[in-house]
C-alpha cells in the first residue's frame, strides 16, 4: 500500500512536471535557410551570413535558427542545395542569389512545402505568381524604367550600355525595359555591347570605349570586382561622363578597383542614401562595428526578410501557409529598415534613389 502511494505520488509529480514544462517551455526554434554564395573572400555571402548573425544577436528571443545554404549563385546548384535543406526540415528561406538561380528554383516554392523571401532577384519571370516565393525587391522592369528615367534627365545623347552576359535572366529583360523606356523618350542613343564582366579585357574594350560617349551604364546583375576596372577604363577615356551601375553592384569592394572613377559613378538604390536614412546608416555602423567591414546592400533585404519571418513566428505562425497568409494579409509592414508592402502575389513596388557620393555611402 505504501509503495503504491509512493509510485502514485511520483507519477503525479512527473505528470505535473510535464504539464508545467509544456506550458512554460520555449517554443521550438525554426530553421531558416539563408541561400547565398558562401564563397571565400567575398563580401557577398559573408555579408548575408553576418547580417543574419547580427540579427540573431540583437534578437535573442527569436525562434529563427539560421542554416547557411550555399548555391554559389549558380543556377544548377541552387535547386539541389535548397532541396537538401528542405530535406533536413528547413521550411523557410531567405535568398540573395541572382535571378537565374531564383528562376531555376521557383518550382520548389510552388506549394506550401516551403516559403522563400527573395531579396535580390528581379527577373520579371518571377513576377505575378501566386506561389510561396515572396520578393521584397522590385522586379527588373520597374528598376530599369526608373534608371532610364534618371538617364533621360542627364545631359548628353549617346550612352554605352555594357550588358553582363553572366546573368542574362536579369540583364536581358532589364536591358529591354531600360532601352524601351529610354528610347521612348527619344533623347539618348543607346550603344549596346554585351560582355562577361568577370572576363573583362581592357584591351578589347579600349577601342570601343574610345568612341565618343556621354555616359556608361554597366548592366550587371551583381557586384563583380571587374566593374571597377571597367569604370576606370571608361573614366580614363571620358573623365567627365557619368557611369551608372545597377542597384546590385552596390558593394564597398568597388572602392578598391574603381579608382578615381568612383567620383563619376551613380548608384541606383532601392534604399535611400545613408545620410538620408539614419536607420540604415545605424545598421551599417553596427554591422561594421561588429564584423569589421561594410556589407553589401542586399543585407538590408536579408535583415528585413528576417524581421518579417520573426514577426510571423512570434505570432505563432510557423508553417509556410500561415506565414504567407499573414504576410499578405496586411497592406504594409514597417520594418526597422523601411516599409514593405506586398501585393497579392507577394511582389513589391519600390521607389528608387540615385546615390552619387559613393565614397561617403560605401566608406
Amino acid at each position, binding site marked *: 500500500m505504501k509503495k503504491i502511494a509512493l509510485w502514485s505520488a511520483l507519477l503525479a509529480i512527473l505528470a505535473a512536471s510535464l504539464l508545467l514544462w509544456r506550458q512554460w517551455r520555449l517554443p521550438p526554434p525554426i530553421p531558416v535557410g539563408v541561400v547565398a554564395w*558562401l*564563397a*571565400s*573572400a*567575398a*563580401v557577398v*555571402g*559573408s555579408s548575408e*551570413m*553576418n547580417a543574419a*548573425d547580427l540579427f540573431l544577436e540583437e534578437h535573442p528571443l527569436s525562434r529563427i535558427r539560421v542554416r*547557411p545554404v*550555399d548555391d554559389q549563385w549558380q543556377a544548377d546548384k541552387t535547386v539541389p542545395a535548397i532541396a537538401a535543406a528542405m530535406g533536413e526540415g528547413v521550411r523557410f528561406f531567405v535568398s540573395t542569389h541572382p535571378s537565374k538561380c531564383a528562376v531555376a528554383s521557383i518550382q520548389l516554392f510552388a506549394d506550401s512545402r516551403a516559403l522563400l523571401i527573395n531579396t535580390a532577384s528581379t527577373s520579371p519571370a518571377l513576377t505575378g505568381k501566386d506561389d510561396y516565393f515572396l520578393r521584397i525587391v522590385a522586379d527588373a522592369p520597374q528598376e530599369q524604367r526608373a534608371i532610364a528615367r534618371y538617364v533621360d534627365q542627364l545631359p548628353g545623347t549617346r550612352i554605352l550600355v555594357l550588358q553582363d552576359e553572366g546573368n542574362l535572366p536579369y540583364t536581358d529583360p532589364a536591358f529591354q525595359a531600360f532601352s524601351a523606356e529610354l528610347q521612348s523618350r527619344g533623347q539618348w542613343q543607346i550603344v549596346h555591347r554585351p560582355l562577361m564582366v*568577370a*572576363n*573583362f*579585357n*581592357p*584591351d578589347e574594350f*579600349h577601342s570601343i570605349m574610345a568612341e565618343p560617349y556621354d555616359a556608361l551604364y554597366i548592366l550587371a546583375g551583381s557586384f563583380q*570586382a*571587374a566593374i*571597377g*576596372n571597367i569604370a*576606370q*577604363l571608361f573614366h*580614363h577615356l571620358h573623365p567627365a561622363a557619368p557611369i551608372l551601375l545597377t542597384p546590385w553592384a552596390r558593394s564597398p*569592394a568597388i*572602392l*578598391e*578597383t*574603381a*579608382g*578615381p572613377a*568612383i567620383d563619376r559613378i551613380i548608384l541606383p538604390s532601392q534604399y535611400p542614401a545613408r545620410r538620408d536614412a539614419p536607420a540604415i546608416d545605424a545598421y551599417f555602423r553596427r554591422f561594421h562595428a*561588429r*564584423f*569589421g*567591414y561594410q556589407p553589401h546592400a542586399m543585407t538590408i533585404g536579408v535583415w528585413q526578410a528576417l524581421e518579417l519571418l520573426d514577426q510571423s513566428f512570434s505570432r505563432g505562425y510557423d508553417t509556410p501557409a500561415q506565414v504567407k497568409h499573414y504576410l499578405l494579409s496586411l497592406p504594409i509592414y514597417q520594418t526597422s529598415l523601411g516599409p514593405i508592402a506586398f501585393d497579392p502575389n507577394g511582389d513589391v513596388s519600390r521607389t528608387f534613389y540615385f546615390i552619387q557620393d559613393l565614397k561617403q555611402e560605401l566608406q
Partner: protein
Amino acid sequence: MTWLRRTTFWHYTLFLEIASLTLTTAILFVAVWFTLSGMNGKYLDLRRADAARVHLFLASHLDAARASLAAFADLPEAECTPAVLSLFSAFSDIYRLDPELRVQRIYKAAPGSKVFVGYAFSGGKLGGYLTSVGQRNDLSEIMRGHENDAPSVYFAIRSAGILYLGRLDLSYVQNFLTQFSRFSGTPLMLVAKDGFVMLSGDPTLHIPTLDLKYWEETPNSGSTLSAGNRRWIPMIVAVDTIGAKIAILIPTELLDTQRNALLIFMGAFLGGLILLVVVKNRRLNRLVMQPMAAFAEKMGDLEQGRWPGQDDDQNVRFAELISIHNRFRSMAQAIAQREQSLRESEQKYRLLTESMKDVVWALDIATMRFLYCSPSVTGLRGFTPEEVMAEPVDAALTPAAADSLKALLRDRAAALLSGQQAADHFYIDEVEQPRKDGTTVWTEVITTYCRNERTGQVEVRGVTRDLTERKQAEEKLAAAKEAAEAANRAKSMFLANMSHEIRTPMNAILGFTQVLARDPDLKGAQRNSLTTIARSGEHLLTLINDILDMSKIEAGRMTLAESPFDLHRLIAETEAFFGKPACDRGLALSVEASGLPRTVAGDEMKLRQVLINLVGNAVKFTLAGRVALRVEPFAAAAIRFSVSDTGVGISPAEMARLFKPFSQTLSGRAVAGGTGLGLALSHQFVRLMGGVLTAQSTPGEGSCFSFTLPLPSVTAGAPQTDRGVFPTVALEPGQPVCRVLIVDDLPDNRAPLRALLERVNPQPPVLEVREAADGREAVALWEVWQPHVVLMDMRMPVMSGQDATRRIKAQMAARPATVRSLVVALTASAFDENRDDFLACGCDECVCKPFLADALFDLLARRAGLRFVRAAAVPPPRLSLSADELAGRLAARPEQWRTALSDAVDLGDCGRITALVEQLGDGDAALRAALEQWAYNYDVEAFVSLLQRNVAGTSEHGLTS
C-alpha cells in the same frame, strides 16, 4: 546539550554513502578536468607550432620576393627585357606607377589581367598601402588582386623616386595549404584583417569569413566552429609580416575522443562504485536492517502484549545480532512471566475494587477524563464505568461547578508539582454528585495526587463513598442541634426577658429600700424589716445574676473583660471574705500564695467569682478541719489555683455530674440551700478564661478543686479600685444647681430614683429633677430644659432610649452653646454587648437596674462633678463569740424555740429563721447579732453547723451530767 537530528540508521548510512559518492565524483571530475585541460593545452600547442611553420614558410617566400623586387627596381630601364623579367617569377605583375598611383608601365602582367596603363591603384586598401610605402608597411594586406580577383599580396618599392609595384598571386600557396592541411588534418587559412578568408586549405568547408573579434581569443575546446559537418577549434595567429592572419582549424575529434574516454572511465568508475554501494546496501539491508526491523516488530508485538513466539536464528548471520536475538528472547520470556504476575495481581485488585461498594477511580488531569472507574459507580450514580470514562469529569456538572472542580483539581496538581504538597497527601472532600436520573448523591471523595512517571502527567486516584446515610444522620443531627440551639436561644431570650421583667420591679423594691434605709427616723424593727427586704432583694438579684450568667454561657454570649488587676489583693480579699465564716464554723482557713506576680492580666471579676464559689463551697461543706487556698505559679505566665478541704467529700458517682447546672450532690442537698449553679458557673468561667476546672474527692476525707489559668504578668500598675468608701448621705449644699432628667416609661422606676435624689438633695436644693415617660418626651424636655444629667431608660415605647440619646447628642453636636448633658443609660439588660451598643449610641455611662445608690452617687460625683457627704465609718458588728460560745448560748434558749429553728433550718425557710431570730429580742444581743448575720446571708450551713454542735454539746452534757 547537543541537539541530535533523529534519523534511521538506513538513512544515515545512505546519506554518508551519497556524500562519499558526491565527493568522489567531484574529485574525479576535477581530475578529469585538469587532465583534459592539460591534454587540450598540449594539443593546441602542437597545432600552434604547425601554424608557426606555415608562417615561417610564407615569410621566407615573401622575403625572397621582396628582395627580388628591390633588385628589379635597381635594374636600368633598358635591361627590363622579357627575358630578364622572366627571372622575377615570384611576381605575376610588376608596374611602374606615377605619383597619382596610375600605371605608367606594365613590366609584367598575368594573363587576362584587367589592369591597363592608366589604371589607378588609388582606391581602397591598396591605395592606402601605396600611400604609406616607405613609412611602415613593406607589403600590403592580403586582398583580391585587381588583375584577376585572385588572392594576392602587393609589394611596393620606391627607387630613384619611382614607385614600383609588384603583385604576388598567392594561388600557388593554395596547393601548399591544401597539402599541409590534408597532411596535418588541421585546415589552414589565410585571413584578411577584416576576417575574409582569402585562402583556405580546405575550400570544401565553405567558410567565407571568420569572426576575428570572437575567435582571436585564446582557443579552447568549449568554443568550436561547425563546418563540413565537423566541429573545429579556430586558432588565429596574428602575424602581420605576411599581410594575413593564419587561421588554423583544429578538429575536435581527438579532444572529444580523449574527453569521452575519460568521461566513460569516470562514468564506469562511478557506476561500479554505485553498484558496489547498492550491492553492499542490499546485503546490509538483508543481513542487518531486516533482522533489526524484525526485532523491532517483535518488540512492537511484545509491547502490544502479543507473545512473539519461538523463532530461530538460522537466518541471522552475525554474532552480535544472534546475541541480541538471544537476549531479546530471554527478555521476552521474563516480560511474559512478569506480565502473568501482573495480570494475576491486577485480577486480584480488580476483584477487590469491583467488589467494593465504594467507587475506585483514576483521573488524568491533562485530559480531565477518567482513566479507570470501578463498576460500583453504577450503583452510586447510575452511570456505567464506560459512560463515565467516555465523558470529561465535569460532563454532568453545571458550568460554574465544572469550572470550580477543574480549578480545584489543577490547583492540587500544581501543589503536587511545586512540592507544596506531599505525594502521599490525601484530600477528603464531600461532594454532591449528579446521578443519571437527575438526582444528586452526597459522597465522600478521598483523593491522592501522583505524577505518572511514564506520561509525566498528574493523575488523581480516589475512592468515592456514598454518604447518603451519614448525611441523613447529620441532617437529623443538625436539625436536632438547630432545634436545641433554637430552644436554647429561646430559653436565653426568655431568661433575658425574665431578667428584665424581674429586674424592673426589683429596681423599685431595692431602690425604695435604699431610699428608706437613708431615713434616719427609722425604728429598729422598721430598719430590721427594711434590712430583710434589702437582703431578700439582693439575694434574689444574685440568684437572677447566676441564672443569667448561665444562660449567657449557654447562649455563647458570655465575654471576658480582661484588664490588669492586683492578684495579691484579690487573694487577700478572698481570705478576708471567708475568714470570719470559717472561723465561725471552727475551720482553719489557710491561704498559700508565694512567688506570684503582683499584677496580672485577666478577668478579675470572674476569677473572684470562681474563687468565692470554690472557697465558699469548701467552707460550707466542711464541718471540721481546714480549708486551704493554694495559689502558685505554673509554667510560664500561668497560675494554678487549688482549693482543698477536709469536708464530706463527693462520691465517684456524683463526680460525673458535678459541673452540671442545676445539679447538686447529696451533701449539697443535705445542707440545703443553693441553686446548683455555683460549680457549673465556675467550671464555665474557668473554661472561658482558658483553663479547666477539675475536682478530686474522696468521700469522708475531703475534696480538692483546682484549675490553671493563663494570667500573664504585666508591669503596669493595676487600677486602684476605690473600695472601702463610706455610704453617701447627702449632697453638699451650696453647689451649682444640677438639672437631672429621669426618663423611664414606668413610673415605678422613676419614683425610687426621684426619691433617692430628693433624699440626698439639701436645702437650698442642688438637684432639680424632672421626669419623662419616653424618649420623645425626653428629647422635647431636653430642648427646653437643658438637663445636666439624663438618667435614660433604654427600653421604652414611642421612642427608645437609644434613639433619644442619639438625638440629644446630635443636638448637642449641632449646638455647641447648649449644655453638655451627661446621659446615663439605665438598663435591665443582662448582656454586655447591649452595654456596648448603648455606649456606641452616645450614652456616657451605663448603670444596670436595679441601681445601687452608692454606685449611682459615685457616678454623679465622678462625671457630673457633684459633691456628696458620706457617713462616718461605722465598724461592722463584731462577732467575738466562738462556735462553742454560740452553741452554749443557743443551748440556753428554750428548747421549743430551738426545735422550731432546727425545723426551719432543715426546711431552708429563711423567713421563718429570720422571724425566730427576731424573737430572741435583746436578751442575748451577741447571739442575736450572729444569727441575724447568718440569716441575712442565708447562711443555712452555719445554722446547721451550730445546731449540730448544740446537739453534740447537749449529748456530751447529758453524758457527763
